């Protein structure tokens, strides 16, 4: 593929998926200070592999899969300790209607999710982020992560269980 041909296709891909990649990287623990680096990595890889994007594969899933791998890479380098909360998204809240009570609830929920993400193993983290937060289907996740669909299902189920227990502990067993 010529450079120009790649660029033309890449523009649309980038515009439609950069926010998704940003969220995936953030939720998977890439530090804010490294997000730009990581985003560049994601889209450089995407650009290079654009020709291998098969028909029938959703570009968003494909990019999300790349973002997951890049995020793992950054985490391996010690970008964020597992116990550290995910700073970026927790601090980026916008209240929907300006009501402080609502904002507080949202903050509580998002903070809880972010804290939970920081406790997950990489294998559970990636499926939880893609399935529960990005709401991608199991087959899409399986394709993106190159794992069997049944593995996706089982990991999602496991991560959900962990999350419910985490919330239970967080809220003292119920409100």
């Amino acid at each position: 593929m010529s450079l120009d041909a790649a660029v033309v296709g890449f523009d649309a891909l980038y515009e439609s998926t950069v926010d998704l990649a940003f969220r995936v990287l953030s939720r998977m623990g890439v530090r804010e200070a490294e997000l730009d680096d990581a985003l560049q990595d994601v889209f450089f890889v995407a650009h290079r592999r654009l020709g291998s994007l098969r028909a029938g594969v959703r570009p968003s899933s494909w990019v999300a899969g790349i973002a997951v791998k890049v995020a793992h890479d950054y985490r391996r380098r010690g970008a964020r300790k597992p116990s550290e909360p995910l700073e970026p998204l927790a601090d980026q809240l916008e209240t929907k209607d300006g009501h402080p009570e609502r904002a507080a609830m949202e903050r509580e929920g998002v903070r809880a999710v972010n804290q939970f993400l920081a406790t997950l193993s990489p294998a559970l983290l990636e499926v939880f982020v893609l399935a529960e937060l990005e709401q991608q289907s199991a087959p899409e996740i399986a394709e993106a992560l190159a794992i069997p669909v049944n593995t996706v299902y089982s990991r999602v189920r496991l991560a959900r269980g962990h999350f419910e227990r985490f919330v239970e502990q967080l809220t003292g067993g119920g409100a």
Partner: protein
Amino acid sequence: MTSPHDRARAYLEEARAQRPKLDPRRREHLKQAVLAGVAGTAVAASSASAAGSWFTSLGAKVVMGLTAAAVGSGLTYGVMKTVVPHPAPVAAASKPIAPAVAIARPTPAVEVASASEPVVVVEPVVEQPPRAAPRLPRTSEAAPPPAPVAEETPPIVPAPEAPKRPQNEAERPPEVVAAPTARRPTQPAPSPALDEELGHLRKAMSLHEAQDEAGAATVLATYEAQFPHGVLRVEALTLRVLVACARGRTDDADVVWRVLEREAPHVLSTPRLQQSCARH
């Protein structure tokens, strides 16, 4: 009374609803950085596959502030990435962005299999994309309006005040920059002139690869007329040798070779020049 199950669902819904977006300027800035890296690598890859990747080190050199990678240095398939300075605060992000940094990392060995020169691998990563270069023009916009320059290659006149480059860059071990967690000092942003220089060379390179040697010679002549002391002069001269050889103009190639002998003798040992028709 809310059960933990319901509360967990409510939390998840809230988290899902949070879909921060990149600020448009940051988004565009990042895209340009990616495209710049892609452009540099694309040109470099084609050059490397031909014989040696001097043009790649050109890109890396630009990013490294023209210090780290010299033409024909061991840092084959030099890669680039710039954390571009953000012009405005990001709406979605509350923290300041990392300052402008230029980092060069080698690509994984698997990607440089076609390169003939040594490869430096920092660490195995999932996929190590090149560090994006500063804003580079795309192919479509890279070529400046062709100046009215005669197709014939003008005689080479050594620039008396050509900027001196370190002559021992080739001997220097390649600078390896590890993970980007440790930021390097900020490099000055490349000037528009530098972008323009790169545009000329990219254009000339692509013409040369397309075997449009006359076109390449014209672009190189334009470049030399416009940037007689350009920072990419050595690269332009190197390409000029190759173009002259491809045109069967050995005498021209010899002249340029002698200029390189004076100005940048370290590049003469690169395979590309060693295999050229120039007298050496």
